[in-house]
């Protein structure tokens, strides 16, 4: 794909103290799976949902006494966009690998714990999927590990199937 896409950017400044709002913002940005473009500048591929998510965070920053702005932008070159996407895919790949490892560990756990782990890891799979804008191959490996865990837990429903939301 030669044409570059549109991205939505949140540029913000937040006072260093108190640290509470900074920590909350950091956690919310992490949950959204943003790309960090610089100090106080994060980006997501633009759509109605990503734009809205960053807009609410901009309001949080303002409420905490900071400054924030929402921008839409296009990368200057396709290569720059590829690099951005690759970085985001690598971050998700890391999360899928951790998920795969946790599934494998849970398969040998006692039955009750296995069922609990399955519920937790399915939720985790959905959460990672929601911030996965450029799915890496590790996604499929994690889906397979979840299915194996579901079978080990005696769950008739194959895990992960169609669970991207």
């Amino acid at each position, binding site marked *: 794909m030669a044409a570059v896409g549109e991205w939505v950017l949140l540029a913000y400044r937040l006072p260093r103290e108190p640290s509470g709002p900074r920590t*909350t913002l950091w956690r*919310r940005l992490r*949950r959204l799976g943003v790309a960090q473009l610089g100090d106080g500048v994060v980006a997501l591929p633009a759509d*109605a*949902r990503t734009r809205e998510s960053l*807009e*609410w965070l*901009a*309001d*949080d920053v*303002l409420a905490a006494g900071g400054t924030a702005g929402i921008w839409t932008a296009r990368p200057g070159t396709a290569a720059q966009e590829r690099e951005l996407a690759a970085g985001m895919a690598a971050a998700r790949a890391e999360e899928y690998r951790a998920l795969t490892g946790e599934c494998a560990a849970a398969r040998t756990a006692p039955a009750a714990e296995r069922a609990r782990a399955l519920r937790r890891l399915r*939720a985790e799979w*959905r*959460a990672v999927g*929601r911030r996965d804008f450029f799915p890496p191959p590790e996604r499929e490996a994690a889906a397979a590990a979840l299915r194996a865990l579901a079978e080990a837990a005696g769950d008739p429903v194959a895990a992960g199937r169609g669970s991207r*939301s």
Partner: protein
Amino acid sequence: MRWATRAGIHVDRAACAWLIRRFVDPAAEFVFVTDPADVPADATPFDMRGVALGHVGGDCSFETILRVHGLDDPVLERIGEIVHEADLDDGRFDAPEAPGLDVLMRGLSMTGDDERTLAVSGPLLDGLYEFIRRRLLLGREPA
């Protein structure tokens, strides 16, 4: 009374509109705007940036309306948790209904305009209310 919100409604705004019409203002009329500057002077804005009935302190707009209008109803409180997770998905509440409600609402917004999303989601939310009411009364899943 007139109420205004952003066009292209999803789960939080659809649920807010239902909440307003059922519990706050039965004669509510809704206006959908694309630019916050287009909110009519006589309309109360909700689920928009920088308005009182928006996201406050990590709450979604539905929860904010519950609080601001003093709607003290355990059924609505539970629906607020579901809407919160469907909209924000931050793990604050255990709400297994949330992902289902979210995809239904998103699908509605793909197949019709905002008026239709409101028209269809209203009876769905009425049903959700009744289901949760019975579940709370019985203390188990109703038949």
